[in-house]
């Protein structure tokens, strides 16, 4: 795999639920947690996805069905060829004693970070948040491992919101940094909490992307102008300092900023 187009057969599909699947590919090119790839479904489109793990020469991508492309992806079976390009962007740095937070469909990139830390025998703490038990990704594994889980309705783990739980964890324990991925409202809340506690952050953002190689200008953040596809998607306090658009609806495929946020942001 590299930045030019190449197609790979799907080697395995794991269904978490009908709208959430993990796809496996034989890809040895080293990818860092937090980096992403572009997946091409020939005849349809090409879209960005984080890598949710890479081990034993296999790359995993976990996709949530929310629109035309991701719904079509649910039909993929072993042997089907898809294009994969990348890896793109700058990922997470594995850090000792990090608090790793994955909220909603943002679990994929932090899952890779957490798994990598485990393989490196670096000690980290994982917090998973979701609306309800059914929406907790990789539920069995995380329950087995005793990861901290919170759901909005209390149907699994503690009842409550991710930022509130992070406040509690910071009050009772000490961490070196917060690494997170998830809805932007959660990321913004975590950024503010981290500032209060003088903690560095590594937060993974999403923006509408086309080229992923820093050319088209579609994913640049207002205020700083940095490209989420190249300088991101994982950003620190310093890199977020000048950004003026956090929490606003993302610019769409035309470059316009719509009145209402897209599905992924809700």
């Amino acid at each position, binding site marked *: 795999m590299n930045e030019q187009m190449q197609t790979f057969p799907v080697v395995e599909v794991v269904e978490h639920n009908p709208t959430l699947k993990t796809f496996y590919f034989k890809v040895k090119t080293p990818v860092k947690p937090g980096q992403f790839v572009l997946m091409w479904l020939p005849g349809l489109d090409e879209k960005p996805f984080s890598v949710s793990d890479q081990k034993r020469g296999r790359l995993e991508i976990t996709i949530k069905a929310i629109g035309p492309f991701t719904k079509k992806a649910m039909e993929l079976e072993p042997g089907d*060829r898809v294009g994969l390009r990348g890896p793109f962007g700058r990922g997470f740095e594995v850090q000792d004693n990090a608090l790793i937070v994955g909220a909603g469909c943002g679990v994929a990139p932090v899952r890779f970070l957490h798994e990598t830390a485990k393989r490196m025998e670096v000690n980290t703490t994982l917090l998973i948040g979701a609306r309800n038990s059914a929406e907790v990704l990789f539920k069995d594994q995380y329950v087995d491992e005793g990861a901290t889980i919170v759901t909005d309705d209390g149907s699994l783990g503690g009842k409550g919101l991710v930022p509130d739980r992070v406040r509690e964890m910071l009050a009772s324990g000490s961490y070196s940094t917060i690494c997170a991925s998830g809805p932007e409202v959660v990321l913004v809340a975590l950024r503010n909490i981290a500032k209060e506690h003088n903690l560095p952050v590594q937060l993974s953002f999403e923006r509408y992307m086309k080229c992923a190689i820093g*050319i088209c200008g579609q994913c640049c953040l207002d205020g*700083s102008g*940095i490209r989420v596809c190249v300088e991101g998607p994982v950003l620190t306090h310093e890199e977020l300092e000048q950004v003026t658009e956090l929490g606003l609806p993302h610019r769409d495929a035309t470059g316009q900023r719509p009145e209402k946020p897209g599905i992924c942001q809700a």
Partner: protein
Amino acid sequence: MPHLKVQMAGISMDSPLVLASGVLGVTASSMRRVVDHGAGAVTTKSCSIHPRKGHPGPCIIPYEHGMINAVGLSNPGVDAVVNEIRTYRDECQAPIFASVFAGSVEEFGKVTRRIAAGNPDLIEVNVSCPNVQSEFGAPFGASFEDTAAITRIVKKNAGKIPVAMKLTVHCPSIGKMAKVCEDNGADVITAINTVGPGMLIDVGVKRPILSNKMGGVSGAGIFPVALKAVWEIHRNCNLPILATGGVSNGNEAAQMILAGAHAVAIGSAVYNRGVEVFQRVNEELLEVLELHEMERLDDLRGGAHE
């Protein structure tokens, strides 16, 4: 001390290097960041009267000698671009060029009138994009009559703002085309746009890779083609030339200036050398001036012609 300041159609620039249209030109902050990295001016992504989503992906694919793109002229519409230009003005001093395109001569007039409200330093008229042929027919830039008519209507509607006509090599003679633009009132010639269109096929799935199947070729591979076009334009018309096509270092930028260019736009090289490419090429151009013990780029311009 040698310096890189240039003047083009009355526009003063600290460096001859311009951000090419369609690259990092969607938002004000992105363009300001390019200026922070050494560009003398920036060009907005080409806009039309109404917003366009562009083609699905893949729409930009790098390959060994450059890249191929069929973004499909996505843009937020001219009025949104006017707002970006205003935001840019609040943040940044360097000149900003606004690129426009349209599907008919009348529409070129209309989009020009609307973009003029943002008061850009230059209006660049894209009559040369190869990516939307099926919708708009062959590029207007392939026809002397169409290009002449567009130049006239755009000049009429641009008011005091200078107009650049952006040409394609895919016309009977780019030198003559530039002369036609000059005779019809243009102030600057931008050349060239992407070449082709070209195609790349994935052997695994046996299909063209771009969703549009074909797309414009840019980057290192087209440099000699662009350079020769600039040379020919310089011999056929007296307008200042904004040269673009495959430039990625100071040597190539100097070649464009020796062929007759006033300014040099860089697009695809942002991929290979990063946003820092502008700063680096500035430094490399200064080295060329030092080599010839020259003070200004004006002394270099056109130097390759007898």
